[in-house]
């Protein structure tokens, strides 16, 4: 009620001013009029007595004069009356107990035998009686005497005071009434304003999920009031509506963005699902060792790789990079990759033919003017010959006889640029042990914090250090080098690397079981069944299969139980190979990094319930297997188990 307090102060000041003014004014007016009236009253009394006393005075009947004086003396405001004779001697008066000394000179006004005309008035101060208006009325021109009437001016003052006090009381009553009315009135103004303030406060913390209770009040305010309050209420309601609309828009925008993001992630999934990810891809082919990895940037890029057998002998493989990023690149990549699959073997059996066809297909309706750089090769698994074609892609590297070199430039344009472009065919001969390394510019142009590229030279030195390793290890090593280089810098482009090692036609064939398991419990049984069939097929001792299954139960249960923090679908890749002496099993999972071998062997003397989770399972695995090793490979846990058949 600060507004009311201010108003109250204002009213108080106003009233004080009015009260003082009116009091002064009315005191002034009253004083004037009362004095005038008083004078005429005094005059009337004096004249009356003078007239009636003439004969009495002549008769020397002072008792009667006194009776008249007594009678008139009872009139309000009359302080005293006295009658003098012509010589100014006191004849009758009503002074009690004595005649004040100040009066005596007044009594002699009419003395000295002068003829006195008319009534005269003087003011005189008499101790104990205050200021007196002294009226002097001569009787028969003062010859007989005179009547003196003293009018008490203090009576007027008291009268005025009385009136002023009454006035003040009345004013105060009015003041109280006005304050009361003002209170009600101000309340009527302040109430809506404070409601509006409360509304704004409520609005500030409101989430707009539901309507505010106070909104209805504000709406009724708008209906009940007119003028400023209504305008204010209206604009507040408008503000609320606008805010609601704005927030609704914001929500829609946000959800649209989320939708797009989820679409992007779907696109990403499409991209990733279109490329082969299971390695070894052809476990029963011993002539080569192929491994590849695509790490997509946050926004979907346009990298891809693919490989397939055109026939029993020829493996067609390719790597590519669609210009641009995002959904268009991703879609274009999907198109390119699909066409690549469709072209190989059916339309053409050479790399140049495939790329040429691909170029024509892509270029034909390429309204968006996108292009793809690609390297395509066809490996003769028997001879190690590679017929390849490079459409504007990074030059692959090759390790031959332990020497690293870059494939010479072929100078052909990227796919989708010129529809009629011809792509030349090149040849390369790989000896067993040689490696061909394909990559996209996401590798060489990966940037560190200082915006420096990883570059081909760093790639080369990384490859040199990885000489003699299998394709899987080379892929892993290169990506680790890149990651070390870029450190925390966000990945800006897809990174893809594909490595092929030629082993030659005589490389011993090892029976291999490659299974992709989903992260479901039912998969345990499936794996067990597959392994049992694998064992029967390749005459593996039942004892060995039993141990493998027992160990795998433990390992897979562990992965299922602890490996995944989300509810998504995951793949656990298990590759088992049997070279008649050793059974080797690799388990890949993309779960939480976890090295089960670091878990201490359990104290078997402890009660089962008190033993730490996982400890016992690994203990069993260690007991069942001859060798157990763990490594973290990019975003996967890789557990390798080895065992040989045990007698008895």
């Amino acid at each position, binding site marked *: 009620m600060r507004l009311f307090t201010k108003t109250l102060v204002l009213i108080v000041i106003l009233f004080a001013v009015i009260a003082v003014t009116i009091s002064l004014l009315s005191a002034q007016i009253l004083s004037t009029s009362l004095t005038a009236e008083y004078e005429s009253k005094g005059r009337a009394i004096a004249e009356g007595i003078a007239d009636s006393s003439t004969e009495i005075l002549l*008769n020397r*009947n*002072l008792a009667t004069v*006194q*009776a008249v004086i*007594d*009678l008139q003396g009872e009139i309000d405001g009359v302080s005293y009356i006295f009658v003098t004779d012509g010589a100014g001697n006191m004849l009758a008066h009503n002074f*009690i*107990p*004595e005649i004040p000394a100040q009066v005596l000179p007044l009594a002699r006004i009419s003395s000295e035998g002068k003829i006195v005309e008319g009534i005269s008035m003087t003011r005189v101060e008499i101790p104990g009686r205050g200021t007196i208006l002294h009226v002097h009325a001569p009787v028969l021109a003062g010859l007989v005497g005179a009547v003196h009437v003293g009018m008490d001016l203090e009576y007027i003052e008291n009268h005025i005071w009385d009136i002023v006090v009454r006035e003040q009381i009345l004013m105060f009553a009015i003041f109280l009434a006005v304050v009361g009315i003002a209170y009600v009135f101000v309340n009527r103004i302040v109430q809506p304003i404070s409601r509006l303030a409360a509304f704004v406060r409520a609005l500030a913390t409101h989430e707009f999920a539901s309507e505010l209770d106070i909104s209805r009040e504000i709406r009724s305010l708008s209906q009940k009031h007119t003028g400023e309050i209504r305008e204010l209420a209206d604009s507040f309601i408008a503000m609320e509506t606008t805010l609601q609309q704005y927030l609704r828009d914001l929500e829609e925008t946000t959800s649209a963005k989320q939708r797009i993001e989820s679409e992007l992630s779907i696109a990403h999934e499409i991209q990733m699902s279109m490329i082969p990810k299971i390695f070894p891809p052809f476990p029963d082919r011993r002539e080569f060792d192929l491994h590849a990895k695509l790490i997509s940037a946050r926004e979907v890029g346009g990298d891809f790789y693919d490989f397939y057998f055109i026939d029993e002998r020829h493996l067609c493989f390719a790597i590519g990079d669609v210009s641009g990023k995002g959904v268009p690149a991703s879609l274009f990549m999907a198109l390119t990759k699909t066409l690549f699959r469709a072209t190989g073997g059916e339309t053409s059996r050479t790399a140049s033919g495939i790329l040429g066809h691909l170029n024509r297909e892509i270029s034909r309706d390429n309204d968006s003017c996108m292009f793809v750089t690609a390297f395509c090769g066809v490996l003769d698994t028997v001879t190690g010959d590679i017929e390849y074609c490079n459409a504007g892609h990074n030059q692959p590297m090759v390790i031959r006889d332990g020497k690293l070199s870059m494939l010479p430039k072929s100078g052909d344009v990227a796919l989708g640029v010129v529809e009629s472009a011809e792509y030349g065919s090149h040849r390369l001969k790989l000896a067993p042990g040689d490696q061909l390394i394909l990559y996209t510019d996401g590798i060489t142009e990966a940037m560190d914090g200082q915006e420096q590229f990883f570059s081909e030279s760093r790639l080369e030195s990384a490859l040199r250090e990885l000489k003699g390793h299998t394709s899987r290890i080379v892929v892993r090593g290169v990506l680790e080098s890149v990651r070390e280089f870029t450190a925390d810098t966000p990945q800006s482009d897809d990174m893809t690397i594909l490595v092929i090692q030629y082993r030659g036609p005589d490389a011993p064939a090892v029976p291999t079981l490659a299974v992709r398991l989903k992260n479901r419990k039912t998969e345990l049984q499936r794996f067990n069944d597959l392994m049992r069939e694998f064992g029967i097929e390749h005459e593996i001792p039942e004892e060995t299969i039993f141990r493998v299954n027992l160990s795998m139960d433990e390992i897979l249960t562990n992965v299922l139980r602890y490996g995944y923090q989300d509810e998504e679908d995951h793949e656990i890749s298990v590759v088992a190979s049997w070279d008649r002496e050793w059974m080797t099993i690799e388990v890949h999972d993309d779960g939480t990094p976890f090295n089960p071998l670091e878990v201490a062997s359990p104290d078997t003397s402890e009660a089962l319930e008190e033993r730490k989770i996982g400890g016992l399972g690994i203990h069993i695995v260690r007991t069942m297997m001859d060798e157990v090793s763990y490594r973290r490979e990019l975003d996967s846990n890789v557990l390798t188990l080895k065992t040989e058949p045990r007698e008895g």
Partner: protein
Amino acid sequence: MRTGALIVLLTSLLFPAPDMQADEEIVLGMSAAFSGPSRALGIELYRGSKAYLEKVNREGGVHGRKVVIKAYDDGYDPPRAITNTVKLVEEDEVFALFNYVGTPTVTRVLPLLKLYRDRHIFLLFPFTGAQPQRQPPYAEFVFNLRASYADETRGLVDHLVNVGRARIAVFYQADAYGRSGWEGTRNALAAHRLKIVGEATYSRGSVYADSFERQVEILRASKPQAVISVCSYSACAGFIRDARDAGWDIPIANLSFGGTETMIELIETGSDSNAGSTEGSDYLQGVISSQVVPSYQDYSLPAVWEYRKLMDAYGDVLPPGMEIADYQPLRYSFISLEGYLNARLVVEMLKRLGPEPSRDGLLEAAESREEFDLGTFTPVLFGPDRHQGSDTVYFTTLKDGQFVPLTDWRKWQAETE
């Protein structure tokens, strides 16, 4: 009483009593103070008159008519006196107004008499010595028995001046009564070429308990040799008390209106509370009172004998219709003696009116220039120019708490400085 009863019997035999009916009564209207600080005046005056009228009525009345008093209380208040008078004339249709008490009251009533001129309403023997009813224009409507205040004050002044007390101050009631006494004193002194040396007033209605110290102070400042006190008995008593308490032993002379037995009583009983300061009797030292009736102890007068006898017989009658509590009637007093004389005179006048009394006949009967004998050896004579029955003033002083005739003024001789 046996004699009285015989007279009644004889009278009734000689003059067969007419049918005495209430409407044949002669009603006298009285307005006086029966309450307030002057009530003793009204009550005692009534008692004195009533005692005599009781006797007359018991003897068969006047020409067979009973004479009764219709009395109203005015409390010594002039407006009430006016109202009472109108009531007495208009409602009670009294034969005459009688025994009014007080100067301010009577002074204010006088114009009414002029108003009732055609009805011949006369005011008989008012208990006041003031001048208005003794002067034109009202003298013709009033018959006075008592001497005037002018007579009283002249007597006092003459005696005091004779004993060398020329410096005379006046203590008086601030109203027509006081003014009347003041004027009398002033005029009497003027005859000796003297002036009033000091004056102080008090307001009517003052009671004994009020303080008069200021008045004592004022008068004392003028160094008077005597004070003439024109007051009612309450104020007279209060003034004497305060003067004596202040150690002022100046002679104080009261007029008949104030110098009454009630005054003595007030001082004597009131001084009980002041016991130890001054003896009650000391207060009354140096107090003189002028009286307009003879002493009720003057056994030489036949009227005194009859008065005392009647007061003993019928004096216990108080005015009817009025609440007079805690009043101790005086056995004898100057006031009731005056009442007795007033009644005796009115009866004499009525007798002269004959069996069919009329109001206008009253004037004629009064002015018949035949003397009335009231048993005081001082004949009363009225005439067309004389409505004043008596101008005899008696002086009394106090001895043993009683008024005694003051015969030797030499005792009051001023000590020469």
